[in-house]
């Protein structure tokens, strides 16, 4: 075993060990806790950077530990995995800074940061999982470690939301487990392999079973990916503290679901099989419905975080739509949205949290003129909102562009219709916020909670927000670079899926 | 086997069944226990009939004797005036 074989495991351990250590810290040991948090996040970032560099140059990293019979616990850093790992470790780093500022002086911080780190461990585990069982193990770990975060405040409302979260996610996981087991029985150990691993099965004799398994798997994953009507947990989970919402909506939970669907379609079933089973159509329909429904519901919310939550329901399904519209371009659009949605949505939640913490704003109707008080926060919000609408040069546009191209390429023009409809609705629920914040006069003095400083708020709340906003902007602006998210995804599509066509735009 | 033995066995088993029945349906507990001791003695006879003298001895001594005494003691104890329950409130604990 060389260091190469241990890197994925080490990446996992950086946050796991941090989390476990933090559990044992007393509430008052703020400095030590902060040090541990930051050290863990930075070491993880460094390890991820090394692996990214290696993956980019064609190296592979794999840790294999015995788990059960012929099935190992496999952690493998392929390009798709690194996309997700890179996203989550970077955003973890930022969210940790944010959370330290956000939770200053609130109780139970050791518990919070402990579970927080474990949550990230689970996410990285999901990303690096090299087979279906490993994926499932971390998928469940994620559910368990997020629950304490959702109910962190301990209010009746939080407990209710936590209960809902559990009902949905555990039911989803039960479906998923059924699908996973069935698939293992049918096809033996399932290692994620580009192009799918089920090609050795005779499609005809197993057709019904394969479709049933697909439905189970996607149904199970769809709960976390917040497909309508499996999304009910997401809007109520917004009672959690803002860093948790950021985790739920951008980094970990919903992403895990969407990422799982990508894995199922590309690395388990393979495009060919998925298409010939005839399941892509219904999947695309579900995704389209979620996109529209989520946007419509978002339009009706006054609570800022609720609106953002429904927006997630809608945006998440872009990823699935990209996958379900079978084609290289839509794949690029869908998969890259995994990253783009993440950085944009986390910006929005950071902003919402910052507004709530600094000036006590929770509802959109209270946001009149807030940009005068918090121009930087609202600038970040504006950038991210434009990205969500899909306007250039923010990252969201790149996703939309490829999704649209892909839908047309696959001869599914209705997909473009869905995108446009969604764009209009997104504009419908984001632009009024921007208008109110920038152009309306404030009603009364702000309910000041933040620092009156040179900064408009606690710098730990502001800096991560600005960083992610800049990321959203650069991810779109520098899309031509091979190391930009979309460049990376193009590489994945080219390498892993062998679906490269000359239409991908820039070589 | 002779008819006599048949008759004896028949009577013995019939008596056992009858005794069992009556002791199980007897209203007076004390009487029931006495009937049970009698039943035990009949059982001992039955063991002898089945050529199991070792069991017969054991039955007479242990089952009829020891059990009988214990039962009588217990019946005596619960017939005595009802003691005040010490602490009923802790029952649910």
């Amino acid at each position, binding site marked *: 075993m060389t260091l190469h074989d241990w890197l994925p495991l080490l990446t996992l351990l950086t946050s796991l060990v941090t989390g476990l250590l933090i559990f044992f810290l007393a509430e008052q040991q703020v400095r030590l806790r902060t040090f541990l948090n930051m050290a863990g996040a930075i070491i993880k970032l460094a390890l991820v950077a090394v692996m990214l560099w290696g993956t980019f140059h064609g190296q592979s990293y794999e840790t294999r530990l015995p788990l059960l019979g012929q099935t190992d616990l496999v952690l493998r850093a392929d390009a798709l995995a690194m996309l997700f790992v890179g996203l989550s470790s970077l955003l973890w780093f930022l969210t940790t800074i944010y959370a330290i500022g956000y939770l200053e002086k609130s109780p139970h911080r050791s518990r919070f940061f402990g579970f927080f780190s474990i949550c990230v461990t689970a996410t990285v585990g999901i990303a690096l999982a090299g087979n279906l069982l490993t994926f499932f193990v971390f998928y469940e770990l994620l559910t368990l470690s997020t629950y304490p975060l959702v109910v962190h405040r301990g209010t009746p409302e939080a407990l209710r939301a936590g209960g809902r979260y559990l009902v949905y996610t555990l039911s989803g996981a039960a479906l998923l487990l059924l699908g996973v087991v069935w698939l293992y029985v049918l096809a033996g150990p399932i290692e994620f392999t580009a192009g799918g691993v089920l090609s050795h099965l005779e499609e005809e004799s197993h057709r019904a079973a394969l479709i049933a398994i697909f439905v189970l798997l996607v149904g199970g994953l769809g709960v976390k990916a917040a497909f309508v009507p499996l999304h009910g947990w997401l809007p109520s989970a917004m009672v959690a503290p803002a860093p948790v919402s950021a985790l739920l909506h951008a980094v970990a939970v919903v992403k895990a679901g969407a990422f799982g669907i990508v894995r199922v379609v590309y690395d388990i079933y393979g495009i060919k099989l998925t298409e010939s089973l005839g399941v892509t159509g219904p999947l695309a329909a579900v995704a389209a419905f979620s996109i529209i429904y989520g946007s419509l519901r978002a339009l009706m919310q006054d609570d800022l975080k609720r609106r953002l939550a429904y927006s997630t329901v809608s945006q998440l399904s872009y990823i699935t739509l990209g996958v379900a519209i079978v084609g290289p371009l839509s794949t690029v659009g869908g998969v890259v949205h995994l990253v783009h949605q993440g950085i944009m949505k986390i910006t929005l939640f950071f902003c919402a949290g910052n507004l709530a913490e600094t000036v006590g704003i929770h509802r959109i109707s209270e946001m009149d003129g807030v940009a005068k008080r918090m121009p930087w926060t609202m600038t970040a919000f504006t950038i991210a909102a434009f990205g969500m609408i899909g306007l250039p040069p923010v990252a969201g546009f790149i996703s939309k562009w490829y999704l649209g191209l892909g839908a047309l390429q696959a001869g599914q023009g209705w997909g473009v219709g869905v995108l446009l409809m969604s764009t209009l609705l997104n504009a419908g629920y984001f632009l009024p916020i921007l208008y109110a914040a920038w152009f309306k006069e404030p009603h009364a003095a702000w309910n000041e909670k933040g620092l009156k400083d040179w900064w408009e708020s606690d710098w730990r709340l502001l800096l991560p927000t600005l960083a992610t906003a800049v990321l959203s902007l650069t991810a779109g602006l520098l899309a031509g670079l091979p190391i930009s998210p979309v460049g990376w995804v193009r590489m994945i599509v080219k390498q892993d899926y062998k679906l490269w066509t000359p239409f991908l735009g820039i070589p | *086997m002779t008819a006599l*033995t*048949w008759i004896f*066995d*028949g009577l013995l*088993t019939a008596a*056992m*069944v009858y005794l*069992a*029945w009556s*002791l*199980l*349906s007897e209203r007076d*507990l004390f009487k*029931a*226990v006495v009937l*049970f001791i009698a*039943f035990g003695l009949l*059982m001992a006879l*039955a*063991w002898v*009939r*089945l*050529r*199991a003298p*070792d*069991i017969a001895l*054991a*039955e007479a001594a*242990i*089952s009829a004797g*020891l*059990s009988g005494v*214990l*039962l009588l*003691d*217990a*019946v005596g*104890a*619960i017939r005595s005036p*009802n*003691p*005040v*329950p*010490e*602490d*009923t409130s802790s*029952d*649910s604990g």
Partner: protein
Amino acid sequence: MNQPTWYALTGVILFSMGIHAFVIRTHLVRRILAFNIMGSGVFLLLVAIAHRIPGAAPDPVPHALVLTGIVVSVSFTAFGLVLLKKIYAKTGKTALIDPTESTSDQTN
């Protein structure tokens, strides 16, 4: 029908009477009695089947089993009676209330 079979039949009858009484009687002493009757029935059956070959010496194994069984059932009886006395002393009851009452907390 031979003699052992006759006794075996008696054993079955005793067992059935015992089990019936065990279930429908509530007084604990009666239950313990019923248990003993059941036991006697089973033992009769066991010894009866030891006479598998008519005339030959009976199989010693069932005898050993029955002896052990008698010891066990006496232990049960004795322990049951001790327990009964304790219950009586504590609660003044000689019959079992339904378990839902003793777990008691199933109200709304």
